[in-house]
């Protein structure tokens, strides 16, 4: 098989700094590690490149980044890390907090780690692994719906399948004009659509034509068309930096309002009752008014 040269970036929970450790193959550091011991074994001896992500704070803004080049596919460990970082942002949130999610390189995310599913060795094994990823990703969508602060997805590049679902789980989606496509690949690769994926599309994409183009046509939708279909808010930028800058600008505008995160999240959830029902989240809307 041969030895792979690899690096793992591990996000360490230190309150105000982003801190990464470069893990060399023959040195074992003691540190807090997200995965279980068996995954550690797998990583040391069968080292795949697992997408990791980091959480930074810039003033009022939380910046969640899927790091490194590559497709930023969601392996179970990636999903667990994203969940943990979202929980961290939630615990540190205050009035005026805003989350911006972005990624490095050509891809925002190309969806679930189907290669990992395939290494299960059998058809049923692969199906089980895919099912595991689909189920474990649900809490990510819930966490974003529940997050007590405005959320912006700054798409540096392609967003496909679960990667597009991650993007659409944000309040605002910004995209590049020159590069990057949106692509719900399920219809092309014969995968069935999880119920919460469809519910999210129904919640966020308003017209029947747009939903058809997104879910049924297998089209790779570029920025301008995505704006026209109402899938993203804007695609006016000619670079990844442009998208991120614009997201930061919007983030700062929203942060300046100093809204209550709890009220914000409650109103957000009440915009999407069907989706909340499918995810099992209770929108904390109440019958008796607290005027």
């Amino acid at each position, binding site marked *: 098989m041969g030895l792979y040269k690899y690096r793992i970036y591990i996000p360490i929970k230190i309150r105000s700094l982003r801190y990464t450790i470069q893990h060399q193959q023959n040195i074992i550091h003691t540190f807090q590690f997200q995965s279980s011991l068996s995954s550690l074994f797998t990583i040391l001896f069968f080292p795949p490149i697992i997408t990791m992500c980091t959480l930074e704070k810039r003033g009022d803004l939380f910046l969640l980044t899927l790091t490194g080049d590559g497709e930023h596919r969601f392996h179970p460990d990636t999903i667990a890390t994203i969940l943990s970082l979202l929980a961290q942002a939630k615990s540190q949130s205050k009035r005026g907090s805003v989350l911006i999610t972005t990624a490095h390189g050509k891809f925002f995310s190309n969806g679930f780690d189907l290669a990992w599913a395939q290494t299960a060795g059998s058809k049923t094994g692969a199906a089980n692994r895919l099912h595991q990823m689909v189920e474990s990703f649900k809490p990510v969508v819930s966490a974003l719906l529940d997050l007590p602060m405005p959320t912006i997805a700054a798409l540096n590049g392609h967003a496909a399948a679960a990667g597009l679902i991650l993007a659409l789980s944000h309040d605002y989606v910004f995209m590049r004009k020159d590069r990057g496509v949106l692509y719900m690949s399920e219809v092309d690769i014969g995968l069935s659509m999880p119920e919460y994926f469809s519910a999210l599309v129904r919640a966020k994409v308003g017209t029947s034509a747009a939903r058809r183009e997104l879910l049924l046509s297998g089209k790779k939708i570029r920025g301008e068309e995505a704006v026209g279909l109402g899938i993203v808010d804007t695609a006016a930028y000619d670079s990844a930096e442009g998208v991120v800058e614009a997201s930061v600008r919007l983030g700062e505008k929203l942060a300046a*309002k100093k809204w209550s995160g709890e009220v*914000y999240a409650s*109103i*957000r959830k009440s*915009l999407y009752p069907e989706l909340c029902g499918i995810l099992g989240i209770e929108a*904390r*809307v*109440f019958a*008796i008014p607290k005027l």
Partner: protein
Amino acid sequence: MCSLEKRGRLFILKLTGDGEHRLNPTLLDSLRSNINKIRSDKSSSESVLITTSDGKFFSNGYDLALAKSNPSLSVPMDSKLRSLVADLISLPMPTIAAVTGHASAAGFILAMSHDYVLMRRDRGFLYMSELDIDLEVPAWFMAVIRLKIGSPAARRDVMLTAAKVTADKGVEMGVVDSAYDSAAETVEAAVRLGEEIVRRGCDGHVYGKMRESLLREVLVHTIGLDESGSSRVRNTGSKL
């Protein structure tokens, strides 16, 4: 308070005086009693309702100061507005809101509870203010928003940015039907629209039933109509 006038086949309901037309229990009772008069009028099924206001405000929402000084009034205020909105939804005639001033929160909901929303562009805005004042939004408000504003992005802008929506922006967002250069022109346009509807001929009873069925989700939240749509249950307000 409010006044009711009849002009031919048009009923003109006006929130009178220069104040903010805050929806306190007294004003809500007065509005409901006028709506009942309209409903029981002989010509109601061949008429049109236009709701408008004097002064700078259409309505600035619930009387929050009153609710603060007398918390026991919160529930009645909300339940009276629910009943008023339910009455508007079941009214056997088309309804037009001629928005000639600011409409915020509950006032926005009152405007949106009409079939047509005409608004002046020179002054005033629609504003769901709750996010700005740390107020949670009742589930039945959200039902009106979801049923009356079609675009998910527009709903997000209205609810999650507390946008101050001017008439022209409102037309763009699909929240307002048409915009006019002044308060007087807005009311004139509402009258013209009303007269055109009357000319076309409309069976108000059928119209009212259609509208109820279209806005069933709001009725479920406001008057406890059960999901199947049978109207056996007709409370006058909250499910307390």
